[in-house]
């Protein structure tokens, strides 16, 4: 087999590290809802049907392991392609493997990949979007591959769609402003990314329509933002106005309250301000959240029982179920790694303006608050940025590529490993 393909497979296996060590893919309380939606074809109230369908088909309706292999495979391919177009060294597959090893050991990327939740696709949509925007001379096969992954990832969650609309628009404006200086390349590419984002929105809307729902990328707008809305003081105060009703029909009460609030005149402004405030906190909340740890939700356990029955015992021998799945150390290390990535990214912007990764670093820096904002709009303060922290390792590796000192060290190590006069003669 081709060595590069082996590297991608090895990378994907390593990315599932947390799944392997847990003895089963990581589950959360939302995993059950996604699994159910995929099999019943019912659009979940807080999101869309796409991820549920992916679970059903990627698992071949037989094993949830296949879902995380699929997620890891997509991520490994994208990382491989990133290094192909941004590092531009003959050893780029090894750089990709180095990157994967690094993010597995020092960030929670492996947790995100190994979890039955669509969070990994937020990172993948940003990464594939970045490749589409800034990769030079991308070959047709790779372009098609990245585009498909982009549309696929973007469709997973409404916050991904919103983020990419904002980001592509932002770079479109930037492209328009700099069209005289830099030509129309960035403008064309950002229009393309926006077009792909719209395609993903339309695709999900068609699917929802096809299964008997509304022609819309979410079940309904007011319930899609309900998780975010529920954390606002305004919403909680509104709920407390009639607490006696809460015990009976909490779901419908939440639904009606969110609808009431959305219909208020100043809702957009109020929720926007609240989300912006939240986003600032979210941007630096990179330690793992409790949702990653485990929630022994009956919905999730029931879904595994119903659709993956022969794996029920695997769930009950997993480390999660015994609450010994410790990922806090990874979360703690991740904060420092992200900070280092940010600092080295600033260094790249200042010192290495001709770097092939220059545009990507700007994109990541501009994208970070946008992603935090969009996540806050839909999910409030849920610590979702911790799932994206691995992206900050890219500026680190771009810096390593540009730094002469690092290059010298690498070539010295390479020389030591490859040329061993005495041993080769024995």
């Amino acid at each position, binding site marked *: 087999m081709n*060595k590069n393909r082996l*590297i991608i497979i*090895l990378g994907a*296996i*390593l990315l599932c*590290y947390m799944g*392997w*060590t847990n*003895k089963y893919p990581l589950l959360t309380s939302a995993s059950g809802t996604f699994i159910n939606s995929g099999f019943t074809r019912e659009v979940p109230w807080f999101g869309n049907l796409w991820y549920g369908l992916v679970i059903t088909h990627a698992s071949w309706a037989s*094993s949830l*392991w296949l879902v995380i292999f699929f997620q890891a495979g997509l991520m490994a391919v994208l990382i491989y392609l990133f290094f192909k177009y941004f590092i531009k060294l003959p*050893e780029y*597959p*090894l750089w990709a*493997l*180095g990157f994967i*090893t690094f993010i*597995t*050991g*020092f960030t929670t990327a492996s947790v995100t990949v190994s979890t039955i939740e669509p969070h990994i696709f937020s990172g993948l949509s940003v990464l594939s979007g970045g490749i589409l925007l800034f990769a030079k001379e991308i070959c047709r096969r790779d372009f098609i591959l990245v585009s498909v992954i982009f549309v696929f990832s973007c469709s997973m969650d409404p916050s991904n769609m919103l983020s990419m609309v904002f980001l592509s628009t932002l770079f479109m404006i930037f492209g328009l402003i700099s069209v005289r200086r830099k030509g129309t390349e960035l403008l064309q590419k950002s229009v393309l990314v926006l077009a792909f984002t719209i395609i993903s929105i339309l695709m999900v809307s068609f699917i929802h329509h096809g299964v008997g729902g509304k022609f819309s990328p979410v079940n309904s707008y007011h319930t899609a933002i309900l998780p975010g809305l529920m954390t606002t003081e305004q919403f909680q105060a509104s709920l407390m106005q009639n607490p006696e009703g809460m015990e009976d029909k909490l779901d419908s009460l939440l639904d009606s309250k969110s609808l009431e609030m959305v219909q208020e005149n100043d809702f957009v402004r109020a929720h926007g301000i609240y989300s912006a405030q939240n986003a600032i906190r979210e941007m630096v909340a990179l330690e793992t959240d409790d949702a990653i740890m485990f929630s022994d939700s009956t919905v999730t356990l029931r879904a595994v029982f119903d659709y993956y*029955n*022969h*794996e*029920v*015992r*695997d769930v*009950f*021998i997993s480390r999660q179920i015994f609450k010994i799945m*410790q990922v806090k*150390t*990874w979360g703690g*290390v991740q904060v420092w790694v992200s900070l280092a990535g940010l600092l080295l990214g600033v260094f790249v912007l200042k010192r290495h303006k001709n770097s092939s990764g220059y545009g990507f670093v700007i994109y990541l820096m501009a994208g970070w608050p946008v992603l935090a904002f969009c996540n806050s709009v839909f999910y409030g303060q849920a610590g979702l940025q911790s799932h994206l922290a691995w992206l900050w390792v890219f500026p680190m590796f771009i810096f390593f590529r540009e730094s002469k000192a690092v290059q010298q060290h690498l070539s010295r190590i*390479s020389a*030591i*490993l*490859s040329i*061993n*006069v*005495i*041993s*080769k003669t*024995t």
Partner: protein
Amino acid sequence: MKRVLYSKFLMGDQLKDIGAIFLAAIMLCFWSIYNGYPLFFSSDTAMYLEAAFAKHVGPDRPILYGLFMYYISGQYSLWFVVIVQSLILSYSFYCWFRYFLPGENYLLFFLLYSAFVSIFMGASFNVSWLMPDVFTPLSVLSIGLIIFAPRLPRHVWVFLIGLSILGIAMHNSHLFVCLGLTLLLLAGYAFKSVREIYNLVGIKFSRIAIVIGLIITSAFFAASISYQYGGGFKSSRGGTVFLMGSLVEMGVVDIYLGENCSQKDYRICEYRDTIPNNFLWASNSPIYQTGGWAGSEAEYSAIVNDILTTPKYLKLVVWKSILRTISQFMHFDTGEATKATPRIDQGFRRFYPNEYDNYYKARQNQGELNFKLVNHTQVVIFLSCILLYALIYYKNGMSLKFRFLILFLLIALLINAWVCGTFSGVYFRYQARLLWLIPMPVFLFLATKIRIRSTEQPKQT
């Protein structure tokens, strides 16, 4: 002049080597010294001791490690067991650094490697643990050295032969791991290209034949010990029941019983809705309702045979076996040293009353041991080694001999993961016991590079 003074008045080479072996042994005892007493494991340590003191083989495990503790401790102190384990391991490391590569700078890297795996990985934990797990890497190291070392002195041969026979007989899994590894090497002779590699690396058929002979001798040795202590002439204990337990965890037994209980009159069918995950050890397990380990063996044997010979079930077993092998390969947290169970407590009170206070006050029993840092560094070391070895294979780096050694150790880890993950279950300790061999080629290689520099320097001047 300095050299003459050094060799005349300080230490002779042999004395230096012996000093280094003892120093490495002390480093390898780190966790038991820190704990204040040797470490024990759940009820298993007590079960080994009970069998040895009762001079009777239990149904679920060989008695040999119990006897090892019994005789080495002199029924006086379990510290002797840890000391002997650390000395054996230290000497094995020494032999690798001394005989895998001829040269003079082996001591430094032998000590560095011993310190590295003691502090940052689980070697010291395994040495300090009153469990046969330390004999897994010892078995792999001994057969590896027999296969790889170009020339060995007679006393080292005696040591390696003794260690191989003893180490492989210590635990059920060792036989399968070592046999699998050796048979795979043997299978290489079927291919011309592999035979050429063997020639270049210096692997001889005679050495592989010796190892196979040692494995067979070890199996006979284990069977004889078992026979001597009333367990019948069997080299391994409870194999079918362990496999049954694993098939229960895989979920295959549920499906099998669901489809076959109406036609076949198995006793386990009565309990098929209440089979616990912890099939082997849970008190409510059907094993203990249907005649215990010995009483259930025939029935479980029939079920296991039926499952493994029916393609429908076999397919699921193969799939789960692959998953469990990879899972076990990456499942290596060290530090399974929780507070004492009542059985352990009773064991120490009965068999080592003079050490009861030390055992009771040890950090392990007070819940003061923390392995979080070691476990994270282990992951980082593991990932770094995987990356480094991928780099070496990708670029054809190092020498062929080193590449082959790396492959040998990785295959040993993989076979260990497969044997344990498939036939017993995915548990930390199974892989943690071998994981710390993974950086060994790096240290051996660095030792070569230092040697190159020291021999090249005079030429340059």
